């Protein structure tokens, strides 16, 4: 399995740079290299796979990593192809490289990355690298959407995706008795794998209702694979005696220095807690998440147009060939909409073909048929993704979970009361104004955790937040970059 990385380098020039080594990025880089393009693959993690195929650290020497994964064979095939392309010099892999900015334009892009596990380039970290390319594929994935509730800052309350990531990479659990809550199909996978790894999961709490899917028999019929997957997840939960409580929410976490219990309440169609239905459930951890948000920093900084998905989250607009609205920049995977690994793999492959054509590579014999088939599968899977997004769209009633002293912004410790005052008394009508009045979103995470909640409390959707840099950068690196520009 590929794990070593190229040494930090500046001035590497390739046809295509792929940012992100998750399913979309892997499919794209392998396809592009097959088509004769010279490629660079930049990824923040030490091992390829992204969040979906996040691998146990090499030193843990897992003989059966697939026990924590779906579709591992597809991934293993991709990593084998990547290794072959790397050995042949067709792909340069920059693992452990955080891309903080992309500059330039069509035909002449520069991707700026920082090395090191933490992206600081500090002790044990690598150096800065700049990769030049004729085309860029943005495969930056997603992170979790969080909606606050009293007690959500207690240690032991962790992201559902976070618990899954820590389990897959580090083979650890946050506790022995873990409630899983929020909304979205990711929760099924998280509860299943936590239980399989030895945690007791007393209950999975889902704010939406899976019965709602049945109202779209056509979409389900066109995606039989998703039904099979759902049935397998349900069977696994049954096997581990995980109770599933739909139309319910964790509306509070209790404890002093760590979580000791949560309150689970019934919610109505708008996710408003039904009075008198609260019930205390003991636990030593809560894994919570309310869906996923595309990670768009690099693309937005370059001016890519976005659309609102049915759950209110912003995603990049791409055409049938995965081209963004910015010439020379393609996108694939969750940054174009939350559709899962299978869709991401298809989009990555389609994007690579489009990029090869744009760079005037000959089209291989028989490619047309495959591309048409992939295009059809993509449309079916997107239809399902839209159904999912619609079913799990956060209801407006979630705000009723909040008490005035509930922290909304974890970094700046801004309370719901302060946000409410900004909206209702000071007239803030959007996330940005709330931020200016309260500092919500001005801390370390730059609003990635609280942005969704703040925007919703101000009456809007998930914000497409623009940030000049996608991750922290030491001042010295910026200064050195500036000096280079002036030469």
């Amino acid at each position, binding site marked *: 399995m590929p794990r070593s990385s190229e040494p930090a380098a500046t001035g590497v020039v390739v046809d295509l740079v792929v940012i992100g080594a998750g399913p979309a990025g892997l499919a794209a880089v392998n396809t592009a290299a097959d088509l004769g393009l010279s490629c660079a693959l930049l990824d923040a993690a030490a091992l390829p796979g992204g969040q979906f195929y996040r691998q146990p650290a090499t030193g843990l*020497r897992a003989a059966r990593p697939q026990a924590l994964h779906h579709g591992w064979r597809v991934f293993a095939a991709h990593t084998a192809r990547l290794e072959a392309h790397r050995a042949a010099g067709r792909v340069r892999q920059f693992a452990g490289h955080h891309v903080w900015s992309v500059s330039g334009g069509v035909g002449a892009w520069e991707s700026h990355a920082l090395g090191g596990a933490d992206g600081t380039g500090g002790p044990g970290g690598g150096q800065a690298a700049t990769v030049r390319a004729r085309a860029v594929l943005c495969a930056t994935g997603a992170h979790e959407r969080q909606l606050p509730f009293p007690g959500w800052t207690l*240690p032991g309350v962790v992201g559902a995706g*976070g618990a899954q990531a820590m389990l897959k990479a580090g083979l650890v659990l946050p506790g022995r008795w873990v409630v899983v809550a929020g909304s979205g199909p990711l929760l099924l996978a998280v509860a299943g794998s936590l239980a399989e790894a030895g945690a007791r999961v007393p209950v999975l709490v889902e704010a939406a209702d899976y019965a709602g899917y049945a109202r779209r028999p056509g979409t389900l019929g066109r995606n039989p694979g998703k039904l099979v997957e759902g049935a397998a997840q349900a069977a696994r939960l049954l096997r581990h005696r995980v109770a599933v409580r739909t139309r319910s929410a964790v509306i509070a976490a209790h404890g002093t220095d760590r979580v000791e219990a949560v309150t689970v309440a019934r919610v109505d169609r708008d996710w408003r807690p039904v009075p008198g239905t609260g019930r205390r459930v003991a636990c030593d*951890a809560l894994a919570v998440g309310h869906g996923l948000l595309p990670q768009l920093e690099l693309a937005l900084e370059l001016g890519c147009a976005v659309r609102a998905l049915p759950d209110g989250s912003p995603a990049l607009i791409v055409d049938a060939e995965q081209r963004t609205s910015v010439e020379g920049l393609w996108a694939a995977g969750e940054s174009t909409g939350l559709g899962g690994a299978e869709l991401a793999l298809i989009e990555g492959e389609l994007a690579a073909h489009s990029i090869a054509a744009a760079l005037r590579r000959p089209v291989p014999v028989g490619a047309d048929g495959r591309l048409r088939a992939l295009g059809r599968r993509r449309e079916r899977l997107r239809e399902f993704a839209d159904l999912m997004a619609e079913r799990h769209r956060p209801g407006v009633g979630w705000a009723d979970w909040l008490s005035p002293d509930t922290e909304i912004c974890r970094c700046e410790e801004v309370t719901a009361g302060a946000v409410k005052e900004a909206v209702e008394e000071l007239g803030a009508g959007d996330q940005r104004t709330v931020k200016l009045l309260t500092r919500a979103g001005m801390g370390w995470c730059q609003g990635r955790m609280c942005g969704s909640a703040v925007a919703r409390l101000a009456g809007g959707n998930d914000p497409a937040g623009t940030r000049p840099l996608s991750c922290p950068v030491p001042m010295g690196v910026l200064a050195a970059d500036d000096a280079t520009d002036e030469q």
Partner: protein
Amino acid sequence: MSRDPLALVRAHPGPAFEFSFDGEPVPALPGQSIAAALWASGRLSWRRTRHTGRPRGAFCGIGVCFDCLVVSDGQPNVRACLARAVPGGTVATQEGTGYAQIQ
């Protein structure tokens, strides 16, 4: 049947090592992040917030939320969920911004 994550994937890690956390030895397995090793030792918090001094630990698990910041080998603001535990490393609970701890 009780099972653990290492058994589930049939992991045969290299020898465990120790780093120090707030002066106490914490075991880690090769490749684990600082956060993973702390979770494995039963610790869920290793930061105190700037304003109210409340405890925090790993939340997003993927480097996005910055709740898991520690002072690692004298450097504040290191994301424990991303940074690898290293033998003999010195990790401390980050108080606020962490800068008072390095002066």
